[in-house]
């Protein structure tokens, strides 16, 4: 077991799997297994057919071995016990990972009180505090459940922000997504709990394709956090998710990610290929979407959580810390598409790289011709701990003259004098590096929900352990 990635264990569990391969039959079989309505089956098939006509994107600065879609499984779910219960091993897995699956623990103050949906391989296995949330009219459930119980909402919004034709991995996801989280906050409701989805990959050679859809109706607010881990397998595992967010008038979604997929070993063997499409639309006036991400895991990360600021006065934010070490590759950033008037966006990106890793920020700020009086502020800072590479690739297109776009960037190494100062006060070199890196990330960490900020700090120190030398 790798000390630096304690989440890398495998849970021995009997599972129900599809045979490997990506075919029209597999798509139909998945849809049938989930007893889906006709419109959803058609959505999948359209995506599958489109997939046959397109190729994986090649513009990002990442290298990986060709993905063998025909050798991979697209569905794997743990077998429930004869009594219909979740196998104990699966429950133990989440216990071990510190994911609070028991409402009781939160009520006793043993765990933070957050509502959790847990996804194990291809299925959501449990969701907590549903009843309490329902009292406020909030729907928080797996997307499969939502398709059954709230088809009108899912039908209206699924694919409305990210079309099934968007890009190769979004198209793939649209065809084969197996589960994920759905969340609806009704008008005027401020969600009283943090909502949290925890994704766990366990099965070998199986892709995970989940879909998250969050709709915040007029004047509502929700803070949502996702976390994820996977076993330390020596092959790559594909994770291709799609996340869509919609805010209506004066609504706000705060979406946080702590991404800790298995990064592969120090020679770049194994690790998750994290090819994710995330986008939100501020549909209503005065609405707001805020993305905060802490990316420490995955062999390859390819993701650009973005905001379409359509409503007037709407606000988009992107706060990111991406850490890469050894042979990790991260190509991440955001797109802020200003459509409405007086729209504002803020981008704070912190990249930390060490070893032979490559850490790229890629961003687009687009101010449309009718987006009068809009503003963007972008700050991209890179910290390189040794021979690693950091790249910053910002693109700005501005089509009106009343808007202002600001961009600041810095790139550098750890400040030697600061390291020396801290060591003079008794901090070991490793602790001193940790403190400086945490300080570098502070403006992003402080955007995380309180319960998770400490965890992010801890994760950062574990990630950096042995990364500098």
């Amino acid at each position, binding site marked *: 077991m790798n000390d630096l990635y304690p989440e890398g264990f495998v849970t021995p569990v009997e599972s129900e799997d599809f045979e490997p391969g990506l075919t029209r039959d597999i798509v139909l079989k998945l849809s049938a297994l989930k007893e889906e309505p006709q419109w959803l089956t058609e959505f999948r098939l359209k995506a599958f057919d489109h997939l046959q006509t397109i190729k994986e994107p090649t513009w990002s600065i990442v290298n990986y071995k060709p993905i063998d879609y025909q050798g991979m499984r697209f569905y794997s779910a743990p077998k429930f016990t004869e009594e219909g219960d979740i196998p104990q091993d699966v429950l133990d897995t989440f216990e071990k990972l510190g994911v609070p699956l028991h409402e009781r623990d939160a009520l006793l103050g043993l765990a933070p009180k957050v509502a959790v949906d847990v996804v194990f391989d291809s299925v959501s296995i449990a969701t907590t505090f549903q009843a309490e949330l329902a009292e406020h009219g909030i729907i928080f459930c797996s997307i499969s459940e939502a398709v059954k119980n709230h088809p009108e909402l899912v039908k209206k919004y699924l694919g409305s922000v990210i079309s099934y034709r968007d890009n190769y991995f979004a198209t793939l996801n649209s065809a084969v997504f197996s589960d994920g989280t759905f969340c609806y906050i009704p008008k005027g409701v401020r969600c009283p709990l943090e909502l949290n989805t925890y994704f766990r990959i366990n099965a070998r050679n199986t892709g995970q394709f989940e879909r998250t859809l969050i709709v915040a109706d007029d004047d509502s607010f929700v803070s949502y956090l996702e976390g994820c881990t996977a076993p330390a397998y020596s092959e790559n595992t594909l994770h291709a998710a799609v996340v869509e967010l919609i805010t209506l008038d004066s609504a706000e979604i705060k979406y946080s990610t702590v991404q800790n997929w298995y990064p592969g070993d120090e020679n770049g063997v194994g690790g998750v290929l994290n090819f994710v499409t995330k986008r939100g639309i501020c549909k209503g006036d005065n609405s707001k979407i805020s993305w905060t991400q802490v990316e420490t895991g995955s062999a390859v990360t390819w993701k650009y959580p973005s905001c379409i600021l359509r409503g007037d006065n709407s606000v988009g934010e992107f706060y990111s810390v991406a850490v890469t070490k050894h042979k990790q590759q991260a190509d991440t950033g955001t797109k802020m598409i200003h459509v409405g008037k007086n729209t504002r966006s803020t981008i704070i990106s912190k990249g930390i790289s060490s070893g032979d890793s490559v850490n790229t920020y890629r961003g687009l700020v687009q101010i449309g011709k009718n987006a009068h009086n809009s503003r963007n502020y972008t700050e991209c800072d890179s910290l390189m701990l040794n021979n690693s590479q950091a790249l910053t690739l910002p693109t700005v297109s501005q089509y009106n003259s009343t808007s202002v776009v600001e961009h600041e960037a810095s790139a550098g190494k750890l*400040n*030697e*004098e*600061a390291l*020396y*100062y*801290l*060591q*003079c*006060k*008794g*901090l*070991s*070199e490793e*602790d*001193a590096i940790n*403190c*400086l890196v*945490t*300080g*570098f*990330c*502070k*403006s992003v960490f402080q955007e995380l929900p309180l319960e998770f900020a400490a965890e992010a700090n801890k994760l950062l120190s574990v990630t950096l352990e042995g990364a500098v030398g």
Partner: protein
Amino acid sequence: MLILQDVTIATEGKEILNNVNLEFGPGIHFIVGPNGAGKSTLAHAIMSNPKYDITGGMKYNDTQLDELATWERAQLGIFLSFQNPTPIEGMSNFRLIKEAMNMGTTSSIMDKLNGFRGLAKELNLPEGWDKKELNVQASGGEKKKNELIQMKMLDPSVAILDEPDSGLDVDAINSLIEQLSDFNNKDKTIIIVSHYEKLLKSFEPSTVTVVANGTTTQTTDISVVTKVLADGFKDFA
């Protein structure tokens, strides 16, 4: 006892001090000398600042220091208060104390925080000082006071204070003298680099070291202090 034996300090191939032979036992020691003579260099050499090439021997009690890293020396109980404390963004004043006191203490975090706040108050630092960023957006005087808090909290056996008075106003100098007197007991070794008359006249040193002309001269004849305060360092040139 901190001993420097035949120490030479150079940087970028240029020798700054040679033939440095010093002993600092329990008590107060002064280091004086003209500007640019190498007083700070000497203080930082004791901490093994990586920018200096140091030869010769340094020993603290029974421990040979030469192979030890900066933080290992600090953890042995040798503390340096900086003349110009380095700004550390994103780290609070108290976080440093917390990190530095991580090992070897049994007091709770709340005790430490209360101790910290008490000292900040005694030194007239603004409310919420514990949360302020370390040496960022602080005045010269505030940074110096913060170094003093660190010294009191970390409670080292050897405290080297590099011009602890610079940037302080008269009231703050009085607090500094008070804090140092309070810190000073029979086990502590306190090495003060200064040329500030009031500070030097407030303590009875065990030794005085004059840093001048590329070397050091240590003496127990403390009348040297009065002499250099009156006549300067021309006799050492």
